[in-house]
């Protein structure tokens, strides 16, 4: 009789323990609330926020905005949009579109410099529709390049004027290349870009309107500028580097 009671107690306490453990496990499980979709769209498009240049590990300046449309192409509210991407942290990661059919999220980039893909997807009748945005993260060297470019280069190389600065682009007889002009700059090796920046355009039989910067910028400054142009190149820059035979 005594033994029966103790076995029953053990079984009962075990059951209690398992239930408790289960409950605890449930509480620790991720409870990120995915909202319930109220509508199902047909397509998702980017509204704004793509192709931003930010710093590694930091949030992008502008929010990411995507729009869900129905099959007639009109914006749809209440559709579920989820954001995900390798290395990026969207906040919030899932949400419903607002009354104008748009979903807005802020994105923090990972710690590694380079391009990040952010995919926004929404379920449709058949398969999930996706829109992919590319964001660029700059590390120290590229950020330094961006600052140097801002001081020494963009007045001529960027055709856009800002409120604080008038562009000199239109005044030049030979038009300089934009720093993101990958179709031209990707063909030039690092060594060639280095020579042009240090010794001026004539070093590579290019426009004499490009002055020599060897006396102004140090070698590491020039490397920073090149790293910056490479990181914002469009189409993206594929480093030639040294090729090794695969074993």
């Amino acid at each position, binding site marked *: 009789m005594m033994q029966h009671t103790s076995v029953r107690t053990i079984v009962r306490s075990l059951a209690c323990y398992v239930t408790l453990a289960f409950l605890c496990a449930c509480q620790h499980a991720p409870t990120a609330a995915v909202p319930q979709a109220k509508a199902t769209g047909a397509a998702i498009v980017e509204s704004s926020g793509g192709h931003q240049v930010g*710093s*590694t*590990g*930091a*949030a992008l*300046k502008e929010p990411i905005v995507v729009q869900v449309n129905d099959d007639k192409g009109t914006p749809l509210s209440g559709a579920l949009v989820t954001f995900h991407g390798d*290395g990026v942290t969207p906040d919030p990661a899932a949400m419903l579109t607002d009354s104008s059919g748009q979903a807005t999220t802020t994105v923090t980039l990972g*710690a*590694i*410099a380079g391009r990040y893909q952010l995919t926004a997807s929404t379920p449709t009748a058949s398969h999930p529709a996706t829109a992919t945005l590319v964001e660029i993260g700059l*590390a*120290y*060297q590229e*950020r*330094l390049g961006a*600052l*140097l470019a801002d*001081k*020494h280069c963009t*007045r*001529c190389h960027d055709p856009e004027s800002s*409120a*604080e*600065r*008038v562009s*000199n682009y*239109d*005044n*030049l007889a030979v038009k300089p290349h934009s720093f993101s002009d990958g179709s031209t700059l990707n063909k030039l090796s690092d060594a060639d870009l280095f020579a042009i920046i240090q010794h*001026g355009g004539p070093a590579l039989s290019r*426009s*004499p*309107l490009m*002055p*020599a*910067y*060897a*006396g*102004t910028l140090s070698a*590491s400054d020039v*490397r*920073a500028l090149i*790293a910056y142009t490479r990181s914002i190149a469009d189409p993206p820059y594929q480093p030639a*580097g*040294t*090729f*090794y*035979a*695969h*074993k």
Partner: protein
Amino acid sequence: MESPRKSKSSLWHALFGDPVRAFGVVSVVLLLALAVAPTKEHFSQWHRYQRQYLTEIHDRGDSISLRRRFSPGIHQIWLPELGVVDRCTTCHLGLNEASLSDVRQQPFRKHPVIPHKLEGFGCVICHGGQGAATTVAEAHRSERDGEMPILPTRFIEAGCGQCHQNALAGTPQLNLGRAMLTRYGCVHCHSILRPDGTKVAATDHPPSLVHVADKTTREWIYSWLKDPQAYAPSTTMPNYKLSDADASDISAYLISTSRPQAGDTATPDAKASASPDPAAGASLYGQSFCSSCHAVQNAAGNLVGGDVGPELTRIGNKVKPEWLLAWLNNPRVYDATTPMPHYRLTAPQLATLAGYMQGKTDTDYGANVHLTAATTQQVAHGKLLISTLGCAACHEINGVAKPENFAPELSSIGSKPRAQIVFLPGMERSLPSYITGKVRQPGAFGAGVKMPQFALTNAQTDALTTALLALTSRSRAIPDTLRVAYVPETAYQPAGHAGRLMTELACFSCHRINGRGGDMAPDLTAEGSSVQRQWLVDFLKNPNTLRPALIRRMPRFNLSDGESEVLTDYMLTVYQSPAIDQEMGLATTPDVIERGRQLYYSKYACQGCHIIDAKVDKGYIGPTLTSVGSRLTPAWIYEWLKNPEAVRAGTMQPNQNISDEDSQALAAFLSSLKGAASKGAKP
């Protein structure tokens, strides 16, 4: 009862029954004990990473060289002077391997390019964390309360700020954060000592409230205190979230104790402002380049203008007309240390400008504020509030002394241990998240927190956090010889008539001379070597446009001939560079000039940035050179062309390594360009 004892003794007998067996058993136990350490090492985390690294590099083309540079075991960077014992490189094996820059899997990726060598600085100086640890959890998360976990990447510039106290080219976030510490009034309440012992000084100019009743009304002060950003979104004044009664009592105290300032309302033609001409006012505002320092919200709601002075969008709501006239007439009567220059405006000009600014009024602002006359108790309560809130830490206030050490010292805030921090529920338990949270919303940390609510963007909060995280105890412990010395701003002040004029015209608000002053306009330390006398006399009287693309320009101060000449002669005599020899002989034969012209247009393509003939040249970056020969001295042009950076640090003009001969030819050509100025009369 006997059986267990019997079995026990039989086990004993089985193991240690005879000496040989006992020896064997002891040997096996000893061997097992000795195997514990190697087994533990074999299964340790770092060892696993090292094996993973070897697999990772195995298939790469340069695996042979990578493997040759790999050495197994624990690696350590030991720098006793910096207090660094970093074993991070035990797992982060590819930090110096250029070919591993494409590896996305940590811990094997190459370190991004930075100005320092890993071997000379280690890792934790910038990244935080526990350098001596050999597991990820201990090294990165460092969960014990006395330990610093690794710093989130977005605050990484805090590492630079431990040794570099002056602004660095590559750390915009740290520079912004430090500028905000001094500009947003943080250091009025919190004292911050740099590692070398110097005190961080405020760079803002909170107005004195001693004569505030001359300037504005109690109603405006009330509305302002309730919500400063509602009046001027760009103001650095924080919101104290005061109740209506508290705001009313403080305004009552300030107005009732205000003393009138002699000469403050004594403008002869005050009545002339009765019928201002708005168009003339706007053009005078533009000509005086008020927007170089003051911002105004445009129709689209964007702020346009500088941030040296206060925003003027609703200035008409704030100031009394007679005070504004007196202020524009001579701001130094009301505030002897204001950064605002003393424009020598004539009475009609004053009336026009004051009338135009008085028109910048938002009729809705403060329309519902009706304050009844305050009782003595209310005034006394206002005074009590002023001392409790610490208003006098920033503003000079009658009857309330400036409090000393009003808020905690922040000199080592970047090393504050977690055990000393009271975190809010749900908050990440780390120092950066605490500082960010406190800066963003001080009120959340309890009703007793006196720190007010600042209006900051997320980027500004992060910048401020970065600057605060740089204030570590490690930075104080580093030997002086290893620290980059802090270069303070000098206290340079010219004397005499010219010196007084320069104070009145607030030259130092924009120009830097001998290490003191702003950075809006060119450094004038060697200006005397640069320009010709007649040009400077004319320029000071009527500053014409040198750089067409520049938005912030030198205003016209309406100087008299005498004042202009006094300033010119002082600058030509005192602000001379020893490197420029005014007596150098410069060949100015026609063929040298012609050679200079060719060099200008072909070899050096100066027309890309400069204009000589506006019909042909279009360059928009550098100053117009049409009459440069009557503006600059030939010796200065020569030295400038040879090395612009040496003549004026931070200039945009590239140093093209121009030879002596080419520089002379170019200088001769440029000096020959006398333009219209040589004929004298200028509009």
